[in-house]
Structures are given as C-alpha cells and as structure tokens.
C-alpha cells in the first residue's frame, strides 16, 4: 500500500468516527472562541504578530552563532550540552546519561521533539520506567496512543473515555466521569511519581542564547516538578528553538499563550539557567540539554521553506484548520498534524514518505491568517505540491522531490495546458462542451458522491458577450 492509499484509509476511519468528529468540533470551537477574547484589538494583534515574526526570523538567520552562544552560556552556567543529528543519536545520549546516573524511573513533561525520536519506547526497552506527567499525555500513555494535537494531546477523548481508562488502570479509584475528581485522581497518582523519580525529562519552549536560559511554558505544574524534584534533569529540543535575547521572550510568550490556549499567560513560566548551586537546597544537581537536528538544518537551505522553522509550536493553525476538524490528528499519521504538519513533515521525513499529506488542504488560508509568527503556510504547502511532482524545478535538497509525479496526471495537465493556452482550441472545446452538454456524465466519481454533477451552459460567456454587444477590444 503506498502512502496515498494508507492516508486515505486513515481518513476513511476518521470520517466514520462520529464521536471523534463531535469531540473535535466541540473542542476547537471552544479554543477558537477563547483565542478571540484575547485579541480584541486587531491592530495590536497584527503588531504583535509582526514582532514575533521578526524575533524568530532574526534568530533563524543567526542560528549557528546563537547556538554556539547558547552552548557557551549554558556550559558556563553548569548545564551540559549535547548535539544529536538523528533521533537515534538523541535517544542514545539520553539513555547513556540515565544509565550513568543509575536512573531507573523518569517523569516526563510534554515534549513533541521526544515524540519525533520515540524516546519513551527507546527508554522502556532499556528497562527505564517513563511516566508522562502532563495530564493529556498521561491519558494517551494509558490509552497507548500518540498525541492527536501538539498542545492538547488528548483532545480527541471525551470524559467518558477518560473515566474508563482511569478505572481500567487504577481500579481502586471509584469510577467517575466528573472532571474535577478525575483531575484529583491524576494529582494523587502522579504526586508519588514526582517525589520518587530519579530523573525528569522535558522539552523547551524557548532557549535564550544571551543568558543560557531554558524557558518552559505550562499550566499544570508537572513541568516544574519534573525539572526540579528529581536529581537529574534532561531537556531536549530542536536546534531551531534558540532565540537571541531575553528581551525577545515577552512578545513570544504573550502571543504563544494567547494564541494556543486563549490565556493571557499560563500558570507557570519556568526559566532554568543552572543546576543546583552550592548552598541551594533543591533542584537537579545535573542538568543536560540535547539539541536535535533531525532535518532542520536541511530545511534551512531554502529561503522560502526556511519560514517553516519560525514555528513556536502553538497549535493555532491546527485549531483553525477546516480539514483537521473533520479528521483529528491521528489521521495524518505524523508527529505534527494539521497545517504545520503538512508543511513540515514532508520536509523533515521526505515527500516520498508523507508528501501525500499536502493534498489534505483547500488553500483556505485560515492557518496563515492566525499563525503568530506569520508563517505563510498555504504558500509553503503549495510549494511542496510543486516539488512533489517536478524534481527539475529547483535544486533544493528536499527528500523525495518528484516522487509523487504520476505519468497519467502529468499528461492530463499537459493536455489542459494545450487546450487553455491556445484560444482556438479552447473555443472548439467550449463549442463542443456547450452543444453536447447533454452528454455530460451524471456520475463524476468523488464529486457526485456529495453533489449533483455540473453541466456546461447552452452558450459560453464569450458567445453571450458577443450577442449582448460587448466588444473584444
């Protein structure tokens, strides 16, 4: 089965899951409304987006210098920095750090980069217990599912499904669908884990080069607990997450929380610059940062596609995508779903593996309109479509360029070109189509599954224009 067939199979499953689609529609309608309350003044919103864009664009241009500065500052602060080109390297580095420290149990804060490397699976094979501590991640860990959204991983589950999961794995806790009670159960279950864990693993929202500071955004407190209670903290992030200055943080923080969850700020903003210092009484004694490339430096080669790397992983594009709301995240089959997924994953993994995702887009532009850092998502997706069917067009090092070109489709477009680039041929075509309109098939594949078949008019507009006395110029 090729990637297109596999994608259609997953889409089919998603479209037939009415409960899933109701869950998503309800969730995203609410999230959109919350975001809108945070931006009552459109001029201010546009100014903030422009500021955020400039901060991220600046960081990407200076990326190698900033990474070196980040490494120097972190190292000077006592935080150990590791570099990984591939998921395997990243996992090995983390596994080795844990083994050297004798760490057998890990509490984990949310990290999409760790999903890229499938870190949990790797560590479990090494015999390390990994507990996801973010409630949404905890839920899907119980369900043994991947996240379906980059900010709200369990967005596809309703309370009954969560209640059933909790009761199955923790039968001593009485069954309840009450959200407050489920939340309290999670608090109790995870509290023990925080206290006892040997190590904590987290992602990073922003890494500040100027001061060597790792910034994390969260509401629950599990991030702070994971990075403070155990004696060892390992952070993992992508190499594009570095920003230049501390003063770059306020606009990014503001637009991230307002866009992603419709909050003026999250409960906690955690800025880590050092491990436990002499005289300090808590905090990890050892802190490590793993910087992962995994295709990002390759994306940076192309100046148009580079914009993809401005992403601050807010999920707003996903929340506004009219296709995503019908399918949910799992249908995409990739770590990142929705518009950012369609733009990023074919670049990260290869057009030959996941290029078909670019078909899941109507070019409506809702994503580009809301992106906090003004990534021109529709333009990038359209560009990837062009690269998918024509490997000659550019010399960009995209994996799998041209791999979706099909001779039949290419011939159709060549014929279309002949017809539409030659007015006389076109006029013959419209003459035939209008005069023989009764021959138009009533069944037109996928179109007529949901709509009546369109039919050519008796006369083309060109003919009507002549009849009504409009000149040709």
């Amino acid at each position, binding site marked *: 089965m090729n990637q297109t067939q596999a994608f259609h199979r997953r889409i089919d499953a998603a479209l037939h899951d009415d409960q899933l689609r109701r869950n998503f529609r309800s969730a995203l309608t609410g999230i959109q409304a919350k975001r809108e309350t945070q931006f009552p003044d459109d001029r201010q919103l546009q100014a903030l987006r422009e500021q955020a864009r400039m901060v991220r664009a600046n960081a990407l241009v200076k990326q190698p210098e900033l990474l070196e500065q980040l490494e120097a500052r972190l190292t000077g602060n006592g935080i150990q920095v590791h570099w990984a080109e591939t998921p395997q390297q990243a996992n090995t580095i983390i596994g080795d750090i844990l083994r050297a420290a004798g760490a057998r149990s890990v509490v984990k804060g949310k990290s999409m980069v760790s999903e890229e490397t499938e870190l949990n699976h790797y560590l479990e094979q090494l015999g390390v217990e990994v507990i996801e501590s973010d409630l949404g991640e905890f839920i899907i860990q119980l369900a043994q599912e991947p996240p379906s959204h980059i900010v709200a991983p369990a967005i596809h589950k309703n309370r009954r499904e969560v209640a059933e999961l909790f009761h199955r794995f923790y039968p001593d806790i009485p069954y309840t669908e009450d959200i407050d009670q489920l939340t309290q159960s999670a608090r109790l279950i995870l509290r023990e884990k925080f206290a006892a864990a040997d190590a904590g693993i987290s992602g990073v929202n922003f890494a500040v080069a100027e001061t060597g500071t790792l910034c994390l955004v969260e509401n629950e407190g599990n991030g702070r607990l994971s990075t403070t209670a155990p004696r060892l903290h390992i952070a993992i992030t992508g190499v594009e997450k570095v920003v230049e200055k501390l003063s770059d943080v306020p606009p990014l923080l503001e637009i991230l929380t307002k866009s992603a969850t419709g909050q003026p700020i999250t409960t906690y903003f955690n800025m880590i610059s050092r491990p436990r210092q002499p005289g300090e009484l808590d905090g990890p004694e050892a802190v490590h940062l793993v910087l992962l490339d995994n295709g990002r430096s390759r994306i940076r080669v192309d100046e148009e596609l580079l914009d993809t790397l401005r992403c601050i992983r807010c999920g707003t594009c996903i929340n506004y995508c*009219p*296709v995503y709301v019908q399918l949910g995240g799992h249908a995409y089959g990739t770590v990142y779903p929705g518009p950012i997924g369609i733009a990023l994953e074919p670049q990260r993994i290869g057009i030959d593996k996941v290029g078909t995702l670019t078909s899941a887009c109507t070019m409506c532009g809702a994503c580009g309109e809301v992106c906090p850092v003004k990534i021109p998502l529709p333009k990038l997706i*359209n560009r990837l479509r062009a690269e998918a069917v024509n490997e000659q067009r550019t010399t960009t090092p995209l994996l799998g360029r041209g791999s979706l070109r099909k001779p039949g489709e290419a011939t159709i477009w060549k014929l279309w070109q002949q017809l539409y680039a030659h007015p006389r041929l076109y006029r013959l075509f419209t003459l035939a189509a209008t005069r023989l309109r009764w021959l138009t098939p009533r069944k037109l594949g996928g179109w007529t599954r949901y709509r009546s078949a369109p039919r050519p008019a008796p006369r*083309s507009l060109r003919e009507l224009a002549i009849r009504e006395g409009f000149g040709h110029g």
Partner: protein
Amino acid sequence: MPAPQQVYFFATCLIDLLYPAAGLAGMQLLRREGVEVIFPADQTCCGQPAFNSGYRDEALEVARAQLRCFPRDIPVVVPSGSCGGMIRQHWPELFAGQPDEPTALAVAARTYELTEFLVDVLQISLRDLGEPLKVAIHTSCSARREMGVADRIESLVSQLDKVEVMTQQRKAECCGFGGTFAVKQADVSGAMVQDKTDALRATAAQCVISQDCGCLMNIGGAFEKQGGGPQTRHVAEFLWERTAGDAP
C-alpha cells in the same frame, strides 16, 4: 481612482463554460454604470487549477497566454475572488524571474475582484426593486483572505432594503471546495460541504449568495444532492435581478 471609461472583463474558465449568466450580469452591472466593458476574445484561464496541483510550468504557460488579452492600462475586472486572488497574489510568484514578469505584474496590479470594483471604484448605488427575501452570504476563502474583499459583498447587499441577511454559524470556515481538493479528497470535502450546508440551512435563508462560483457549485450542488435547499446565486446575478436589470 476616478471611474474609468473602459475595463476588461476576465470571464474565468468556470464562469465561461458553466455559469455564463453570472458573468453576463457582472458585465451588465458595469455597463449600466457607464463603463465600456471589453471582453477579450482570446482569454481562457488564470492558471490556478494547475498551480494548486503543483504543475507550475503548465500553469505559467496558460497564465502567460492571458497577458496579450489585457494590453491596455485599464482595469481588469474578475467575477471571482479565487481567480482574482490567483492573478493578484500568485502571478507574482508564478512569473518570478520570467521575461514577461513585468507585464504580468502590471496586469496583476490593475486586477480587481468585481464587488471590489463596484464598491471602491464605481461607488455603485443600488435600488432594491425585488420582493422581501432572506439571504445568507457565503464569503469565499479567497475573497476573504487572498483579496480582502469579503466586506464588499456585505456592503453591496446591505444597500438592498428588502433583503434580510441571515448570519450562518462558522461563516468564515471553508466550504470544502478547494478546486481539485474536492476530487482528490472527495470524502473530506463531502464532510466539509455537509457542515456548510447544515449551517446555511439553519439560517432559513431562501438564497445563498457568493462572489465565487466554485463555492456555489459546491454548495448548490450539495443542496441538490441532499434533495433541495436554498437557491444559490453569484452576487452579480443577484444584484442584477434585484435591481431589475435594464428595466427603467
């Protein structure tokens, strides 16, 4: 800009073959305002279908064949946010580095979507001669986001005092047409148009109006398949009918 004496009319391939009445109404609205409307004989298509499918070379050849149809420095009026958006937003991308790039940019710079032209340039004034009617306005994604002209159709319809505009839920959400998307992702498209038609039905509007025939083909075709629903009209046809056309 002061009202020009002449404009070109860009039919769009969809209107030329499938919805010529909408195009004709657009041309008639312009002529009634005292503008001479020129319909270049050799025009065919802006190139968007191929462009959105990734076949940019083919799109470029078709797009460039349009350039010689619009040589004079007069506005090009397009009864479609989608095709207008292709010309204004994407021709610069498509023609980048090409020998005829300056010509393409020049044409793009004087391209207007029809309602944009009627409101901004002609400042058209409309007298409603029709019967009371409830309508819903579907603002196409391209009119809204590529051309920024969603408010122009609202403004025109608001001049018709016997027309009541109903507001559907999730008005800004895509109807699921997306050109070749409707064929390549037929089932997702079907789910999207179902949501859109549900929302429009719920307003009890008798007619759905839009700046884009692609969306209308999608929405209207879905209503028909569902066994009936509100009528659908391109805004040009709707305005021409409401203002009784050429009637004195």
